[in-house]
């Protein structure tokens, strides 16, 4: 991981160990899982179209994809996703699929640099899997409304102009 930073003042060993890192499971959070419940009796239709009956809120806005839903979802085993070489991955390991194109992000995520981590810096940590923040169908991180701006200093009025000074610098 690199040399010791020059700036350390301690020669004591770090407290050990740093705890375990687990990835949260996505599958239990999926409202429509298992997909095979509905899809096992259906024929997969890979034509790009606007869905009108089910999954209508899914808007596909994920770069230029060919193959539409089945680029990631597996026709033959709808409860799984697949990588570009056909390897099946469960929804819990969706990050491997994301990482097959976004390798740098995957590398950062595995190191804990990218993404959300909850827990303890000295203890167990949980990583959120990619779909927790990035809807794979429309992954751009959503705009948010920020919390309020800081209160102006009490000597500054709302228009940004000072209230009348009492005597000026004398």
């Amino acid at each position, binding site marked *: *991981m*690199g040399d010791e*930073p020059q*700036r*350390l*003042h*301690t020669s*004591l*060993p*770090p*407290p050990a160990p*740093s705890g375990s890192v687990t990835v949260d499971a996505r599958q239990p959070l999926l*409202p429509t899982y298992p997909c095979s419940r509905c899809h096992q009796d259906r024929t997969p239709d890979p034509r790009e179209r606007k869905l009108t009956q089910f999954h209508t*809120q899914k808007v596909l806005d994920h770069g230029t994809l060919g193959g539409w839903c089945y680029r990631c979802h597996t026709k033959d085993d709808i409860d799984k996703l697949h990588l570009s070489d056909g390897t099946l991955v469960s929804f819990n390991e969706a990050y491997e699929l994301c990482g097959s194109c976004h390798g740098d992000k995957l590398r*950062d995520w595995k*190191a*804990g*640099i*990218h*993404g*959300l*981590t*909850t*827990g*303890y*810096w*000295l*203890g167990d940590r949980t990583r*959120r899997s990619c779909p*927790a*923040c*990035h*809807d794979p169908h*429309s992954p751009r*991180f*959503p*705009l*948010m*409304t*920020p*919390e*309020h*701006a*800081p*209160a*102006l200093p*009490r000597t500054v009025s709302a228009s940004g102009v000072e209230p009348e000074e009492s005597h000026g610098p004398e």
Partner: protein
Amino acid sequence: MARSDPPTPSVPTPGERVEKLVETRLEESGSRRTFLKLAGLAAATTAVSGCGTSAPTSEEFFRQHYKKLTPEDKERIFRLIEDETLARTGVATHISDPPPIDGVEFAYALNLSVCNGSRRCVEACARENNLPDDPEMRYIRVLEIDAGTLDLDESTPNYGTDKVPAKDKFYLPVQCHQCDHPPCVRACPVGATWKEPDGIVVVDYSWCIGCRFCVVACPYFARRFNWQAPTVAPERINPNQGYLSNRPRFKGVVEKCTFCLHRTRKGRMPACLEACPTGARKFGNLNDPNSEIRHIISTKRVYVLKEELATLPRFYYFFS
């Protein structure tokens, strides 16, 4: 005032999904923060005046500097403070004094490619550290800067309530950097602020004389002064308090971010990190080769603010 979008009962949009995620994280961490849907509450609360009574008690007047307190002194003082808070606000608090962990040197990293200026960190910090709303005090200041410049003089902290991130802007949160060469520590004439072995620069609120030389000396606008008695509504008081961090403060003394030492010295993450919805904040032990913070410093192009001042901050910014 901007408020986060309330979650709807139907299938969540991506934005709602993220909000819910952050809420879940906050609840998981178990602290008593109310997430900011309290539009009416702030106005309606009976604000009890903080520890700003003009005359100190004789115990307060003669109290020694933190470094001179014996364990018995600390026990006595902490119970005194807890009793006083209970009497004044009806809230039972617990004051701890976790020592620095051996072999730990804290550092913070902030990913500027990912921070979207949501200011969730600002408010979470305020709730965790018992910062007053009136007059408003916030340790963290988020600057909005045009993409293409790092000039702080062209930044603004007052960006409004439009959705963030705004086009062609990026966001730079600033708080105390716990510098290795802290100009504030050198400035203080009475030694009321100093750097602890784990890197955190702390303030003994009972020793500070309020001369504000440290506020003058800080290049990052990190230190805050209590120009009047701070007031925190009783229902918003965080009862998990540290003597050197978020215990009740007084009029006439200086305070600042302490990397939530009452949490981090027990292995937990600082409140700002937990509230960040984009995962821009990373924290850990610089001394641990397996920590995220070491990984960031080793592999990312990190930089610090105002490097030419040789303050050696422990707060690193990077783009990913």
